[in-house]
């Protein structure tokens, strides 16, 4: 047999674990890191998915058997080791439970944000470091820049593909160990790189659908998996008139128009949820606009909140246009955001993410909104504040 070299670690090269999906972005990320001289290890997480019926084993959409085979093929082609880590139980206990809890509380969560915080850059980053890796790399379109001894999270070069919104929970200690190789390129450039390297050019995880559902039906999922009852209740307009009955608060989202079962002269939209009275509040399109919000669980990427009110552009959803705002840190990891204009569809549970130019300052989860029209009601909705 060959001469045995006991320690396989090459001390001259930094080690990177790449989270691979089999798609173009993470594949190109792995190829770029190899070219940059890193020792590269591919890894995929097996996440929980809803047990299904029928012969085909259900699979989480972020890690179907096909994607696993694709990622393994890419790893083989690049000549890097590839492992699948079992994160099913942990994912169920954290992300899926968070999703259910938030809906039970009348909010509309973004589980991808929470997954990045707790799973990808929590669990997987811990695992990567335990493997003596120096970095965890992913195929996200974002950039990490070191400036004056601190790490900045910046938008990806391709502003259309920028994913910094779902990464706003980063702490300095995490950014020190994270690489986003494709963040320096546009999607077109990444596709060209993939072709040059003979890598797959299809994208994975483009869809914002929930990865752990059997079907696209989150209402059915909540109904099947929540341990709470979601009783029917009144649908109220801004004048407290009952216009109909709703089928349970989690089954509606802010801004929703269809499926209310109400015949009205003008189109009605879901404005908010009054969880205390189990009421769904509806009103005209003009009433959707919110002028302010309060965010909870706010993270400031620099590690410290600004001293006082700060100008920032705020995104209230992954694909939303940034709104000029003033962000004021509040006690208890909260922040108040005053928009320069009324913003429709501000939804409790979604993330509000703060930017200064292309730098992501941080963000938090939307706790309450202030809708000027709504605020005139005698009884505010639970999703809104009248004083702060």
């Amino acid at each position, binding site marked *: *047999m060959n001469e*045995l*070299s*006991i*320690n*396989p*670690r*090459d001390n001259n090269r930094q080690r990177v674990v790449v989270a691979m999906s089999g798609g173009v972005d993470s594949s190109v990320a792995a190829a770029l890191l*190899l*070219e940059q001289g890193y*020792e*590269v*290890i591919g890894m*995929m*997480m*097996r996440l929980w998915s809803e047990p299904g019926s029928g012969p085909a084993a259900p699979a989480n959409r972020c*890690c179907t*058997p096909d994607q*696993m085979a694709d990622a393994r093929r890419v790893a083989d082609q*690049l*000549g*890097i*080791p590839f*492992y*699948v*880590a*079992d994160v*099913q139980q*942990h994912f169920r*206990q*954290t992300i899926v439970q968070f999703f259910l809890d938030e809906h039970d509380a009348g909010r509309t969560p973004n589980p991808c944000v929470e997954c990045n915080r707790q799973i990808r850059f929590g*669990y997987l980053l*811990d*695992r990567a470091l*335990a*493997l*003596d890796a120096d970095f965890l790399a992913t195929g996200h379109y974002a950039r990490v820049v070191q400036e004056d001894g601190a790490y900045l999270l910046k938008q990806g070069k391709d502003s259309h593909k920028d994913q910094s919104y779902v990464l706003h929970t980063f702490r300095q200690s995490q950014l020190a160990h994270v690489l986003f190789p494709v963040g320096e390129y546009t999607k077109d450039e990444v596709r060209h790189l993939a072709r040059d390297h003979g890598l797959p050019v299809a994208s994975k995880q483009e869809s914002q659908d929930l990865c752990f559902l059997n079907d696209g039906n989150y209402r059915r999922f909540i109904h099947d998996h929540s341990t709470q009852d979601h009783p029917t209740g009144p649908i109220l307009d801004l004048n407290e008139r009952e216009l109909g009955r709703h089928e349970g608060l989690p089954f509606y989202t802010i801004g929703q128009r269809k499926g209310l079962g109400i015949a009205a002269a003008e189109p009605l939209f879901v404005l908010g949820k009054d969880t205390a009275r189990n009421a769904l509040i509806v009103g005209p399109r003009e009433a959707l606009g919110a002028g302010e919000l309060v965010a909870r669980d706010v993270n400031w990427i620099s590690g410290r909140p600004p001293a006082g009110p700060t100008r920032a552009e705020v995104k209230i959803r992954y694909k939303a246009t940034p709104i000029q705002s003033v962000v004021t840190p509040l006690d208890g990891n909260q922040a108040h955001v005053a928009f320069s204009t009324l913003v429709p569809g501000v939804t409790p549970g979604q993330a509000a993410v703060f930017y200064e130019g292309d730098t992501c300052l941080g963000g938090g989860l939307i706790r309450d909104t202030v809708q000027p029209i709504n605020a005139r009601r005698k009884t505010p909705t639970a999703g809104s504040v009248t004083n702060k």
Partner: protein
Amino acid sequence: MTADNNMRQNAIYLDHSATTPVHPAVVAAMAPFWAEQFGNPSSHHRIGYQAARAVEKARRTVAEVLGTDPETIVFTGCGSESNNLALRGAMTASKAAGRGEHLIVSAIEHSAVLETARQLRDYFGYELTILPVDRFGRVRISDVEAAIRPETALISVMAANNEVGSVQPWAEIGALARSRGVLFHTDAVQLVAARQWQLNAEPVDLMTIAPHKFYGPKGVGILVVRSGVDLVSSQTGGSQENGRRAGTLNVPLIIGAAEALRLAAAEREERLAHVLPLRDRLLAELPAALPDQCIVTGHPTERLPHHASFAFRNLSGNDLLIHLDVAGIAAGSGSACSSGDPKPSAVLQALGLSPEWTTGGLRLTVGAQNTDAEIDYTLGKIVEIVLKLSALEAGYQVVA
């Protein structure tokens, strides 16, 4: 960029129960049978006769090493196929003869036996009893005795378990079966190279062998079928292997199988003398270094000589294997799983271990090329990895 210059190849191979490298002498013995003596042993011309002679010589070698007659040796495609042929063949023959349709297996059989037995029950209407094991992973004779019925046709209990290494009381079970007029099959894939056989004098009717476990090639298996045992072939076609296994004989691999078995017998004492001390170090030193987190699984002494197996508290065997591989150590959990969807080990559950232990199985099986220095490095790495992973898991437990 290739695997070699990205990350050095695994330096330490400790998974010899999964498979072994083919011995150079075996490679040499097979060499003429790919392109030179390429004949089909069923052909009626000199090229075919030449191949047939080589196969019959291999058959005589195998029979001689095992202490049985050449007519009892059936070459198959792998160990799993041998197990399938033994169970399906014997049960079908018993049913066809109007005899019993009851089958007994143990709970810790290899899936090639267990899944075949379950299919015979679920799809073909046979009766099945699955025997429990004691906390050392051994079948109790009293359980076998209690399970035998007038209609019992076959008992299949492995000679030694692949996952926890326990050697089964196969001779006692075989003797009991014989005294009750029941056929006895043993899956001896793990044990065969570790002892001297005298099958003509031993109470075994059917025995499964897989040469790739003892430095032979993959793709060939052996089923020993005692004279007078009725088997209905499960792979039908030509009349090769006395009608017990249809299909063109895989001549080179059969030659390799015989040569590997011959070498295993010839070198048995020196191979055992090499692996035993290394294995004993693993068994002694790992639990001593991790007293609260590591236990030896299987029987402490009645176990395969090259086989050490452990369970680690609240860890995932899958995680351990990933970390070991990155550290350059190729180990096994006992049951291969590459999809990242590990289930608690059915074998560890059968031993009666509580859930905190059943996901964290690790198997280290040593071989001819392992050294003391490798064992030193491996012990150090495992301790380091287990402490690291345990600390991580403890953090998640708090959150959850």
